[in-house]
Structure formats: structure tokens, C-alpha cells
């Protein structure tokens, strides 16, 4: 994966609906090696659905999704949306991260020494050593976020997907997450689904604006016009090369999109 222009994932004319309700229509986009793609758009606009289609968790009604650029035995790292599982589940941080090492067969799966070593390594890298035996139900938002990232990274993934990773964490954790993703992006492509692109603005290479259909897919710095169109109102302007970000006037109160994404 040295060629940064090599095509990794190809989404072609994909449509999807839940029952009679169309969620995505005719979406096409590419993900390249070393890419850092932000899929943005309003809540309920189909971002998470698009991610699940790419991951193969949902099957498209029409169109094709192919993974031409990945080796046959590839690993996919996935950090799901915060509330996608039961927080009171009786598992420790160690148990949860170790799940990232599980293989594909049905019967008895032994935990190998290598699995244990890699789990210990990743917990150490993410500063989670001290929490290793703590039940996941007792973690703070930022801690749980890091545990989910550790679980995704422990298989040495060829690509990392994150769904709304900053929605439930505080500002300090957001900053740490953003710089961690930039560091990871030196080796693997990253795809982030978010309704708040500003936290990633300084590092994202490409942006895809999704609201029922794809409004824009291309360089991050050119994205502001499409953002207006996708959200139906002016939104925060993304600036490249400038430290952090430039904010456009965001006066229209109808622009806030509370509630959770589907």
C-alpha cells in the first residue's frame, strides 16, 4: 500500500432503503490507500448506513461495492457508534479488546500467547493498562472510546473506520483522538463518519457530503459550498493548512441537528 492513489474501496451507484423509506440514492465514491476520508452530513442523512454498506453489514438494493485494493486476507478495523452495544455487559476492558483478535471459525477459539501480547501492547499504547481489569460499564466516555479503538486496532487493520467517534467525548479527548488518527493515518487509510467535521478539519484529505445522496466527494478544502447544500444552511468552513479551522458565520438556529443518527 505504498501508492497513495491506489484504489482500495469502490462504491458504485449504490442505493439503499429501509422498507419503503429510501435512505441512500445513487451514491458513488472511492477510498484510496493512505486516504483520510470524512463522511459528513446531517443526522439521519444516511452516513452510518453508507458506512455499514461499505463494511458489508448491510446489502445495497442497487449498485456495487468492491474492495479491489485490499489483500485477500485483510483486517478491517471498526469503531462503532457509541450506543451500539449494552454498556452494562459484564466484561472487562481486557475481554473486550481481546475480541478484536477473534478469528472466523465457529468452534472452540483458544486465546494464544500472541493474542495476549498484542492486547497488552495496544492497551499500553492507548494508555489503558491501568483499566485492563475494569468492567466496561464503569468507564467514562473518553475511556470507552479508547477501548473501542483498541479493539479495532488490535488486529493490525489494513483500514480503520470510525462512526461518530467524537459525539460522546469531551474536548480534551477529542483533541487526543484527532492527533492519534493523524498518526495512524501515516500507515493506514482512515474513514470517519461525523456530523461535526471541524474536529478533524486540519488533517482530513477528502470529504464526502451525504444527505440521502452524495452531494460532494473530493478535496477537503473545496467542500464548503457542498456543505451548505447538504445541510440546507451554511455550516462550518473547512480550511486546509491553516492551524485548526476557520468558522463561517453560523447564525441560522435551524441549522442545529439534535438527536441521534439512525
Amino acid at each position: 500500500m505504498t501508492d497513495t492513489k491506489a484504489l482500495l474501496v469502490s462504491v458504485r451507484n449504490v442505493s439503499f432503503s429501509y422498507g419503503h423509506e429510501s435512505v441512500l440514492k445513487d451514491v458513488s465514491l472511492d477510498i484510496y490507500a493512505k486516504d483520510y476520508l470524512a463522511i459528513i452530513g446531517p443526522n439521519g442523512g444516511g452516513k452510518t448506513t453508507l458506512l455499514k454498506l461499505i463494511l458489508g453489514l448491510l446489502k445495497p438494493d442497487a449498485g456495487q461495492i468492491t474492495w479491489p485494493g485490499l489483500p485477500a486476507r485483510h483486517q478491517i478495523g471498526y469503531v462503532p457508534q457509541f450506543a451500539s452495544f449494552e454498556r452494562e455487559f459484564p466484561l472487562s476492558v481486557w475481554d473486550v479488546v481481546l475480541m478484536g483478535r477473534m478469528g472466523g471459525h465457529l468452534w472452540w477459539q483458544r486465546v494464544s500467547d500472541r493474542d495476549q501480547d498484542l492486547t497488552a501492547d495496544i492497551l499500553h499504547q492507548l494508555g489503558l493498562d491501568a483499566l485492563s481489569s475494569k468492567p466496561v460499564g464503569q468507564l467514562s466516555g473518553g475511556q470507552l472510546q479508547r477501548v473501542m479503538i483498541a479493539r479495532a486496532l488490535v488486529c493490525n487493520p489494513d483500514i480503520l473506520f470510525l462512526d461518530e467517534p467524537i459525539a460522546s467525548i469531551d474536548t480534551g479527548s477529542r483533541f487526543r483522538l484527532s492527533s492519534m488518527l493523524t498518526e495512524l493515518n501515516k500507515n493506514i487509510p482512515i474513514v470517519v463518519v461525523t456530523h461535526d467535521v471541524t474536529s478533524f478539519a486540519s488533517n482530513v484529505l477528502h470529504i464526502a457530503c451525504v444527505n440521502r445522496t452524495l452531494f460532494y466527494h473530493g478535496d477537503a478544502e473545496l467542500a464548503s459550498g457542498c456543505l451548505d447544500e447538504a445541510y440546507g444552511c451554511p455550516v462550518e468552513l473547512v480550511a486546509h493548512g491553516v492551524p485548526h479551522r476557520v468558522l463561517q458565520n453560523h447564525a441560522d438556529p435551524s441549522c442545529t441537528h439534535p438527536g441521534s443518527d439512525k
Partner: protein
Amino acid sequence: MTGLSAVLQYDFMQNALAASLLVAVLSAITGTFVVIKRLVFLSGGISHGAFAGLGGAYFLGINPFLGAMFVAILSAVAITHVILRRSQPADATIGILWATGMAAGVLFVSITPGYAPDLIPYLFGDILTTSRVQLYWMAGLSTVNLLLTIILFRQLVAVSFDDEFAHLRGLPVGTVMLLLMVMNSVAIVLMIQAVGIILVMALLTIPPLIGLALAANIRVVMFYAFVSAVLITVGGLFLSYYLDLPSGPAIVLLGAGLLMVVKLAKAQSLKRKVES
């Protein structure tokens, strides 16, 4: 009052005690998955739906529990299919199964010629009438259930915790879900023998909730669930024998009492921790 050793000489009491231990094993492993994966309502649907099989088998003159087992497994497969396809909310499907199963069961029993049987033991259980043959069936199927749980443990936990992530790890999520559901429905029918269709819910929920109150690691939760299930079933059995109470309600009410004591004790110890 008869002495304990004298009571234990009775065949029926030995059978009932052995059945209690087996039910405790099923309650601990199946119930823990049912509670943490939020399958309580679904389990209610399966146990009530199984009444159709019970009644049907009674009408045909075969062993009612074979009929219940057949219908329970069939409905587990059907519900898993609905859940995996997400074509309609499983919630409503479970409600339909619940009502239709009970209706069909009662109908079958009422059109069977001859004396109408007493339905109360099927609904509320009668562990003291467990026969040797039933006990062998229970022992065999509980062992299969236990072994499958041990062999598939990591997969069952991974799919219960986060099925999408498990799918991305390449796990056969559909097959694991189906196995979990079928194992659950077999356990449910075996437990119907002890506490009856209606009260099976208590054995699937109370011991795991006690376990969850005492531990945060799933294996330890299952251990505490087993211990409390033994206390509840054996305790309920003796209460039932000595006070001449129906065994099902005795077991369930003892369980509810124990859960309340554990919860209160836990709240007290948390309060003390905060104060100190």
C-alpha cells in the same frame, strides 16, 4: 416434621433434587445470556408459544414435552430468521407467538376426547412429580447445552456483545445466533418441567440478576447465578414439601425475596463506601 434424611430416601424427592440442580445449571448459563442480550421477552414468547406443542402432543397422545420441544425449537428458528433479516420488528412477532401458542394449546386440550387434564402443573410447574425418564432426558440435554456453551463461549459472548463487530471479525453471526436461540429454547422447555410455562421467566431472570449484582465478569456472574439458582430451587422444593405449597410459586417467591435481599445489601455497601 419428617427428618431430612428420611425425606431424601423418597425416590420422588431424589428426582426432584436432581432436577433442581439441572435447572440451576440451565438457569445460570441460559439465563445470563437471556438477560445480557435482552432476550427476556423473546424467551417469554418461546415458552408460551411452546404451549401449542404441549397441547398438540396431548391431543395426539404423545409425550407433551416432545411437542413443546418441537414447537419451541421451530419458533426459535423462525424468530432468529426475523431478527437477522430485520424485515419486521421482532417485538410484534413475539407477541403473536405468545398469544397464538397459548390459544392453540388450550384449544388442542379442549378438543381432546375424555377428561380435561389439569393445566396448572404445565403453567406453574410441579418439580415433585419429575419422573426418572424425564430426569434422564433433562440430564442428557442439559449436558449437551453446557458442553456447547463451553465450546462456543467466546463466540456466544462476542455475538451477544456486538454482533456487527463479530461479523467483521468473520464470525458466522447467523449460525451462532441460531445456536444460541435453539439452546435457549431447549433450556426453556426443560425448565417448564420444573416451574411451568409462566414461571420459567423467573428462573431465566432472577439468578442472573443476582449474579450481575455481585460480579462484573460474565463467568463469575454465571457462577453466582448457579449458586443462587441452587439455593432458590432446592430451598423452594423443601418449602413446598414441608409447608405443602405448590413448588413453582415457592421457588419463584423465594427467588424474588433473595434478589431483593441481595440488591438491598448491595445498595447498603455502596452507601457505606461513599460515606467512608
